[in-house]
């Protein structure tokens, strides 16, 4: 009896103190529901498929969640993703994959930092700044590539490392089709969650997102924190671009368009406050998984009035429900 009471209080404590409690619960609930009601859903084939489909959004969502904790958000990550994919692709095709890797990370990180610099200098809200750079960055990409798509049929030297099949796991589980990108995502989420939760810089990110005036009053360099957070958002868009080209060997000028909003959706569904000051990187990954699970479930369900192409309707409902759930939990604290 006593043990069960302490268990209950532990669960309650977990719920009231962890921003990822709600999204984890949501993910488990929809996984169970789909497993019960959707034929063929409960299999490692669909689970690994869900994870693979969440890779790009997950990478973007890691950066977006970090940035959102600092109180800003970034609509230009979709454009940055395409820029990174072109850089990585062109260098790789030319036989310089390592150089491509470096530039595909540094350029988006710098473009992200430019968002931050504009924001800090002008005081224009991030919505407007990144709406502008979203179009400007993609426009510049069009000019530089003259609008032509980049495609290769060759196997690139670093494909295996980023998006190759994760045979270690796949050999253990029949039907599973996990990819190496899963490792990278988990590693990056781990690193950025540590930075956010366990370092001085992370402490400053939270303070700037919740009350910039108080942060400034305590000697926090608010401008530096914002610019660095934007750079991290850009960097993760660079990672997503590398994944994209590594896996599909194709990039168009329009690649990644609209993914910015999906990433924000994943962060919000994952428990990050849109107003800043609260959030969790793992939650953003869970958010990306929730969206991906819904898509797979809807495809398999074959509902007549919700075709797979129209699963956006379900994402929309999920975002609003997640926001309501987050608000309810934070009010109960």
């Amino acid at each position, binding site marked *: 009896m006593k043990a069960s009471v302490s268990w209950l209080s532990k669960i309650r404590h977990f719920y009231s103190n962890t921003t990822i409690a709600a999204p984890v619960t949501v993910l488990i609930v929809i996984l169970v529901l789909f497993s019960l009601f959707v034929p063929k859903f409960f299999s490692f084939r669909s689970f690994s498929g869900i994870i693979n489909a969440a890779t790009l959004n997950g990478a973007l969502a890691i950066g977006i969640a970090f940035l959102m904790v600092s109180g800003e958000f970034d609509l230009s990550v979709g454009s940055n993703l395409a820029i990174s994919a072109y850089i990585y692709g062109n260098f790789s095709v030319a036989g310089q994959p390592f150089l491509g890797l470096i530039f595909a990370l540094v350029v988006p990180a710098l473009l992200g930092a430019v968002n931050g610099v504009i924001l800090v200098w002008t005081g224009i809200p991030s919505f407007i700044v990144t709406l502008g750079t979203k179009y400007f960055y993609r426009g510049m990409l069009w000019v530089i590539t003259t609008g032509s798509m980049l495609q290769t049929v060759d196997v690139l030297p670093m494909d295996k490392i980023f998006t190759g099949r994760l045979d270690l796991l796949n050999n253990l589980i029949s039907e599973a089709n996990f990819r190496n990108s899963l490792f990278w995502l988990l590693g990056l989420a781990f690193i950025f969650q540590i930075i956010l939760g366990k*370092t*001085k810089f*992370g*402490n*400053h990110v939270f303070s700037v*997102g*919740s009350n910039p005036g108080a942060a400034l*009053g305590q000697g*926090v360099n608010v401008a530096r924190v914002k610019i660095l957070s934007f750079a991290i958002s850009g960097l993760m868009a660079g990672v997503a671009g590398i994944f994209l080209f590594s896996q599909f060997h194709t990039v168009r000028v329009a690649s990644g368009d609209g993914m910015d909003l999906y990433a924000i959706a994943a962060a919000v569904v994952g428990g990050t406050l849109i107003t800043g000051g609260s959030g969790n990187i793992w939650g953003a990954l869970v958010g990306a998984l929730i969206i991906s699970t819904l898509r797979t479930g809807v495809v398999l369900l074959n509902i007549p009035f919700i075709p797979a192409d129209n699963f956006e309707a379900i994402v929309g409902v999920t975002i609003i429900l997640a926001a309501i759930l987050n608000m309810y939990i934070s009010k109960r*604290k």
Partner: protein
Amino acid sequence: MIEVNHERGRNSLVWMENITKKFGTICALRDINFGVQKGEVRALLGDNGAGKSTLIKILMGIHQPTVGQIYFEGRPVKIRSPKEAREIGIEAVYQDLALVNLMSISRNFFLGREVVKKVGPLKFLDLKNMESICRSSLHDIGIEIRSATERVGSLSGGERQSIAIGRGVYFGAKVLILDEPTSALSVAETRKVLSYIENARERQLATIFITHNVHHVYMVADSYTIIRQGHNVGTYSKGELSEEDIADLITGDRES
């Protein structure tokens, strides 16, 4: 009324001498003399727009005086930013700008002065240490908290004020500037906050208590400086004037 004496003023902890501040053609402050001594609670009284916050912003380094000189511990100083003010020991506690609501008490306590431990070349927050230092140092000045990991947003206004005051005391502030610390508090909470101010006085801190309402400060202040429309009305010691008299001086219903 206490006569202005520059010689004596310069020997107190903080002395702002002949401060004039103009914003364009508007003269916000004219020839103000204001200071506070160790172990003194000085009320800075004035109606809305009288110039209280301008004067304090000059002391905090947010504004520079057009004319005038600040002395700190007897030496002339130039305070160029809130950071510089804090470095010499001037700590301001603003009602909305003191603490970050979504962060825990201990993370707030150490914000900008985090305790880190080294793991190889990396530095991580020493959260356990921060929590225990925060808890014990607040306890030392009579502030009890339920848990250092509790979010500040769930605390009452009085608890937040007291934590901000406690933080200033712990980090060695010599001057505490409190901006309307009790104006939004219940009677019981106001008493508590006043008791922390008395505690700070016993520790020989100088306290500047800014308010437009004399009732809030009458219990605790040792002396009062009243300003009206950017002018010094006068400085009075405790017991010299009734609450009524002070209120009349603030509004200008009575001349000094």
